């Protein structure tokens, strides 16, 4: 399968079935999706549509009950939890709606976290984390704890944390859901910027204006892909 090798993400007939007591919930019902490197994709859907489940699987936090998910050519369904942790550490950066920073811990240390689990020397961790913070415009705020930062700044720390690992995929789950308009725009600008620099970004949202930043829009409904369309002409970055 040539597609598996070339594309960053290949999902093939993925099902996710939960069993809650006697009730069986089919969160995903045969989702097939291919995303190439450098794409900026918005996944849209109402709550309960299955978009969170899809997000969790794409982020290697969960595995499909049936079907396959290849990330960078590796079939994630056959991996153990520690191997999935390794993939999350090296290939995936998460940005959450509620920021999910570690409380009472400085911005720098929050940004360091993925490198900490990679076991890098502490000096290198600090240098890379500081560079990531600078990239999201938080220079000089390294020692601030989350409570000393505004929502938009906290989300920028979270983006720095996602960036620092130099992942092949950035997963943003409602990244602007808890932010005012001004901060939302700033965050989306950063994500667009990152995409322009070649980062694959997958954005989960239910806001149309946020989704408008992406070049491709995938709509999920009742665990199935309802529509998948390119909304912007793909900007090809000249490879240096």
């Amino acid at each position, binding site marked *: 399968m040539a597609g598996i090798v070339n594309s960053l993400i290949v999902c093939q007939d993925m099902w996710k079935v939960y069993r809650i007591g006697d009730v069986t919930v089919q969160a995903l019902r045969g989702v097939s999706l291919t995303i190439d490197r450098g794409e900026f994709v918005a996944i849209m859907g109402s709550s309960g549509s299955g978009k969170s489940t899809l997000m969790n699987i794409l982020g290697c936090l969960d595995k499909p009950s049936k079907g396959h998910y290849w990330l960078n050519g590796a079939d994630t369904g056959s991996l153990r939890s*520690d191997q999935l942790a390794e993939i999350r*550490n090296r290939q995936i950066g998460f940005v959450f709606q509620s920021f*999910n920073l*570690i*409380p009472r811990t400085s911005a720098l240390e929050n940004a360091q976290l*993925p490198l900490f689990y990679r076991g890098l020397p502490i000096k290198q961790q600090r240098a890379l984390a500081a560079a990531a913070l600078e990239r999201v415009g938080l220079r000089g705020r390294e020692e601030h704890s989350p409570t000393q930062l505004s929502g938009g700044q906290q989300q920028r720390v979270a983006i720095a944390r996602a960036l620092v690992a130099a992942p092949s995929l950035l997963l943003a789950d409602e990244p602007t859901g808890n932010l005012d308009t001004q901060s939302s725009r700033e965050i989306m600008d950063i994500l667009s910027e990152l995409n322009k620099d070649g980062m694959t970004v997958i954005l989960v949202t239910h806001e149309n204006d946020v989704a408008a930043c992406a070049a491709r829009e995938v709509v999920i409904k009742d665990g199935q892909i309802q529509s998948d369309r390119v909304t912007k002409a793909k900007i090809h970055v000249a490879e240096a």
Partner: protein
Amino acid sequence: MFTWLTVVTALRVLRRNRLRAGLTLLGIVIGVAAVIAMVSIGEGAKQAVQKQIASMGTNVILIWPSGTTVGGVRGAQGGAVTLTVGDALDLKKKIPSLTDTGWYTRGAMQIVNGSHNWNCSVYGTSPSYLTIRDWSYSSGGAFTQADLDSAARVAILGQTVVENLFDHGEEPVGAAIRINNVPFRVIGVFSPKGQSAQGWDQDDVVFIPYSTAERKVLGTLFLGSVGAIAASAARSEDLEDAVEEIRAVMRVRHRLQGEQPDDFTIRTQVDMGKVQEGTSETLTVMLMVIASVSLLVGGIGIMNILLVSVTERTREIGIRMAVGAKRVHIMTQFLIEAMTLGVVGGIIGVAVGILAARLTTIIAGWPTIISSDAVMIAFIFSVAVGLFFGLYPANKAARLNPIEALRYE
């Protein structure tokens, strides 16, 4: 690298929750301190007993008359007067493993020095008895065989007697005292021996030559009768055999036939020490158990606080897992937190325990011995307790589902 950073993280977490960590530590501190203090007290008691036993002399065997049986009514032990000087001399002659034998007769007498008077036990002994029981002298010295032969009126006083008969600073050696109205010259003062294992004051005694006691002070039922015989063996391994040999010789001398019971009782120093040592051993074990229980309670405190911590930090654990923490990382983080509590609690506990033992000695006057073994064991145990009680919470944290942990409010 990872381990070191985890230690740093764990320390930071503990520092963040100072009060909580402090209270948890307190449990371990009290536990460790209790173990150390209790063992010190137990060890101190044990050594005090050993000292008392040693104060009896080395490898000593004591022979008392048995109780009399008159018309089927048994009298108290030592009630009969069946032992003689001849027995003692014969034992020494016939049993080569005995280095020496000595004897004494005893009575309570009024002692007078000028305007002071005192009532205490007066022992008429052979000079050999003094060496067997290992008496030493703070001034003057012992009486000799010549004193015994001539029934010299010389006396050696115990410390308690000196305190009661002489004014402070007055020199007892050379002084003239009267025992039961018989004039004596003090030739020595014993170094204090303190309480005996049975609890009586070993320094409240006056020793005079046996012959003097028999003829001039205490009187006697028949010539050469003694209250008890003491023998010493050269080596402690010989004690048991020596007892049997003594029994054999004594039965022949006392013309005891086949089934007739011994009319004497033989006790070794080891027998006499055993009871007391057993008691203090029991004490040590009991104190240890109590202390260990408190250490256990401290451990449960650690577990409790870590479980709270795991619940409280569920989301943090989720975040860590999302950015690539493996189960072993999460597990290690919580285990190190638990162990840090154990180590820090152990260190403080050791200090507090040593202090408590010292204070016990200073305030209550109980002898305490801080054994390095107890300190080591208590410390290692506290770390082990931390580790053991940290396992469950750490495992619980490591088994969290990252998706649910991230969603946890």
